[in-house]
């Protein structure tokens, strides 16, 4: 699963440069998913460079509007990452998040945003490889879907 960074992967990356690059925005909770991303980094697990992370204290901080507005502004995909259920640093913030994200999905659907553009994932501080996989999967999906456009659902 976890690839090591090699000369070939660097050249593969190169080929992408000229192409259209999707913008994948991620809201990651400080304690688990953000730390998981750091672990992927510390272990040199390469992944798609489309991702831009905004650190939040807890996935419970994520407001549906933060996702909706991001699509409005032109990002192509949004990832929300939190601690596994039961592991939340603040005990139950991720449950609050999970509840709200069902609303988000409905909202995005109504706005004509394809399903693959939004994901909620529980990624722990030790799951660097899962973070890598999720980012790669999502970025690939976004490349397949092309730029997001709102409102024509």
């Amino acid at each position: 699963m976890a690839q090591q960074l090699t000369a070939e992967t660097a050249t593969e990356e190169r080929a992408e440069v000229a192409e259209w690059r999707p913008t994948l925005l991620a809201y990651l909770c400080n304690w688990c998913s953000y730390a998981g991303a750091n672990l992927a980094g510390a272990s040199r697990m390469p992944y798609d460079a489309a991702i831009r992370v905004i650190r939040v204290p807890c996935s419970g901080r994520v407001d549906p509007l933060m996702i909706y507005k991001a699509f409005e502004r032109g990002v192509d995909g949004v990832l929300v990452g939190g601690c596994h259920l039961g592991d939340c640093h603040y005990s139950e913030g991720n449950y609050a998040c999970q509840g709200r994200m069902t609303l988000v999905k409905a909202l995005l659907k109504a706005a004509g945003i394809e399903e693959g553009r939004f994901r909620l994932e529980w990624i722990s501080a030790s799951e660097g490889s899962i973070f890598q996989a999720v980012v790669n999967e999502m970025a690939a999906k976004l490349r397949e879907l092309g730029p997001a456009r709102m409102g024509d659902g």
Partner: protein
Amino acid sequence: MPRVGVFVCQCGTNIAKSVDCAKVAEEAAKLPYVAHAATYVYMCSSAGQQMIEDAIREHNLSAIVVSACTPQMHQKTFEGCTERSGLNRYMSTMANIREQCSYVHKDPELATQKALELTAMAAAKAARDEPLFQSEAPINRKALIVGGGVAGIQAALDIAEAGYEVTVVEKTPSIGGRMSQFDKTFPTLDCSACILTPKMVEAYQNPNIRLLTYAEVEQVGGFVGNFEVKIRKHARSVDEEKCTGCGSCWEKCPQKKIPSEYDEQLGPRTAIYVPFPQAVPLVPVIDRENCLKFLKDRCGVCQKVCPANAVDYTQEDEIIEDTFGAIVVATGFDVWDHSDYGEYGAGQIPDVISGIQFERMLNLSGPTHGKVLRPSDGKEAKTVVFVQCAGSRDDQHGYPYCSKVCCMYTAKHAILLREKAPDAQAYIFYIDIRATGKGYEEFIRDAQRKYGAQYIRGRVSRMFRQGDKVRVFGVDTLGGGQVKIDADLVVLATAIEPRHDAKALSQLLGIGCDNNGFFNEAHPKLAPVDTMSAGIYIAGAAQFARDIPDTVAMASATAAKVVGLFSKEKLLSEPSVANCDVNLCSGCRACYVTCPYDAIEMTEHDDRAARMTRMVACVNENLCHGCGACSGACRSGAMTLRAFTDNQIEAQVEALCELVPA
């Protein structure tokens, strides 16, 4: 106008290898609000830090961005820079261009572009940073301990030893808890009273410890450092100051047949009583529900015989109000009531008793003076069947969990049975043996080898009275086949369960209970004695079934937590807390129900513009942990989390989208 300084770190070549740091700095300088940008080889080195501090002063910066490693590594370092150069400490933001950029993207062009975007996002946020302040609260350096079992006593002694005042609130007339009921304790078989009584007396005599027995916590307000607590001390009907514990009163009391709680209903007590001879304090209480004076206004013997004139029928409950800095909850456990087991006689067979009742039987000062006798006819019991896991590991009748101590105490019972009656035979029905402590497995083997206990692997299906015996239908799953034993006495290793009033107490304290009803720890591995409420700790069997070694270790751990808290000069709160804009708040309570720390109160707000008072949310900054769940829940945009405001997050998204080549 904010003036942001950007400092791009090369981390030797860690970052510079794939990110063109000079280019990032150069481009960053063009970003809105950025007044200065620079790059350096090691930003966290003293030279790097000095460079930042100088730049802040020289360029009159109001906030900084350090594009470097993860904030989890050096956020605090760079906060030092802002603080030292006279800015508010928290006007410092990091962009993670190492772990989340240079380490994972080898392509220089992609990595450089990403680093720039991350820097721009951080700068957009930094431009909207506002000074944050940690609020300070004084600490009231007194500890409250709820429950005076071995856990409560140990915690009290440790805290008192460190020089702080402790109040122990114990519900029953004496401290001591379950351990005071035992004859001997596994795995070393030392006499329970011999090791516990000295501790009880020490707690009584320690000038730093105040024991409030026959008392309960009635109300808890405030927060860590300043809990305001109301305690009800039930009327004892005996003046604690005057009583000498001579015993004349309970010797003369005519009400002699009341089932003793301490003896688990196997023996009687009087209406004025001390639960056991070594009780601390050695001051009786009158059980008003059974006293003739209170029932029929007759008798009054105890008052007449008391040489110290201590008996006072007019005494009333006393309410004690006090403030504490920390609370330790050590209320222990209850024992599951086996009348739920119809197939085991529904509690109606006198010779089917619980493990804790057997403990009382084994005790020399107990109702049978240490003899193992059948409750039905007082004859000595020779064939004793023990049934493990009664009410534990049972989804149908009892609890799903393993009660942890019953394998061990059953082995202890089998050993003590042989010691008391060498011709007695113990049969132990078990499913598994769980003996996972120092010397525990060896203890079980001793029970088998040296004391001849017959272990039979299988659960008992049914038992009933057969003449003067109890017929037990079990199974030997290893030997194969059903087993029928006619026993003199059956001892059920009944489950350890939460105190029946644990839920109520947890609500009083604002700490949660788990699915089974035990108090919730903050983290099962890394914070096993903390609770989700700062300043409240749990010890012993109140958290889950625990044996004495675990209980005492936990108690000392809570004491270390309390002493650690008390050794601080003052309490500093989390700087990044939630804040409600009352003008926007609709009073919908969405935040209120979401907050895991009960940090939000709905309060009345005098809305001048609308000429009315309405309910709005209000954050108690001392309780807020800064998770932001409230802010995520708020539909009106009224609730924000400082340092992670909607405004700051939107600005980051905007900065990102502006830089993305269309």
